[in-house]
């Protein structure tokens, strides 16, 4: 898996280009997860978003997610592109593509990748509403880090 399968970009993401990175003669299934900017969250209207990232570490952590997937599914191919900068409603923020010989694994791995992005990849989203703006933290809302950092097994 080459490093350029895991990319942070300021440009609009070409979905087909990400999918093509994982195309494979022995793949029977490709699962693609596309994260898009939603207008309404809990009834509150988003005007636009800004994403920022610690780019080199973010690309490294995306690649790590790819390696974690290949540990479970050695035949899998993974590509992830995340966009940063200002995004409008319905814009694509992230595209994950995973190919595997059999379809169940592609679903499992793609789901794993998006959850893992929300755990370990240094990317931040700032929501801009009509009445203010805020950096959004920890969308997983599944755990807090009382020690100020994730436990070893989370990273």
């Amino acid at each position, binding site marked *: 898996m080459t490093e350029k399968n895991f990319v942070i970009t300021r440009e609009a993401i070409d979905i087909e280009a990400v999918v093509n990175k994982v195309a494979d003669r022995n793949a029977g299934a490709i699962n693609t997860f596309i994260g898009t900017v939603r207008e309404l969250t809990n009834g509150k209207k988003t005007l636009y978003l800004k994403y920022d990232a610690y780019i080199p570490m973010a690309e490294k952590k995306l690649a790590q997610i790819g390696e974690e997937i290949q540990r479970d599914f050695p035949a899998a191919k993974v590509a992830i592109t995340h966009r940063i900068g200002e995004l409008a409603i319905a814009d694509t923020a992230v595209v994950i593509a995973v190919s595997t010989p059999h379809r169940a694994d592609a679903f499992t791995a793609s789901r794993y990748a998006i959850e893992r992005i929300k755990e370990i990849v240094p990317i931040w*989203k700032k929501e801009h509403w009509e009445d203010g703006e805020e950096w959004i933290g920890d969308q997983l809302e599944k755990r807090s880090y009382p020690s100020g950092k994730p436990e070893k097994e989370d990273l």
Partner: protein
Amino acid sequence: MIKVLLFADLEERAGQRIVEIPTAEMNIADIRRYLLDKFPQLSASIRTAMPAINEEYAADQAVASSGDEVAFIPPVSGG
């Protein structure tokens, strides 16, 4: 000299992304204290940020040396 990066609300509160600490060695806990001393407005946020040294998450006891890049990473929200 240790280079420290602040992101998201940390960057906004500090008013800068890069802080340079003129020292040969310092552990993460001490770097956090150094930053709080310089930017008291980081108080709430820096406690929930994860430290990293050279692009890998690191523990509070980990020691950064001159030339290393330390980062404080607020709860992430990509995806």
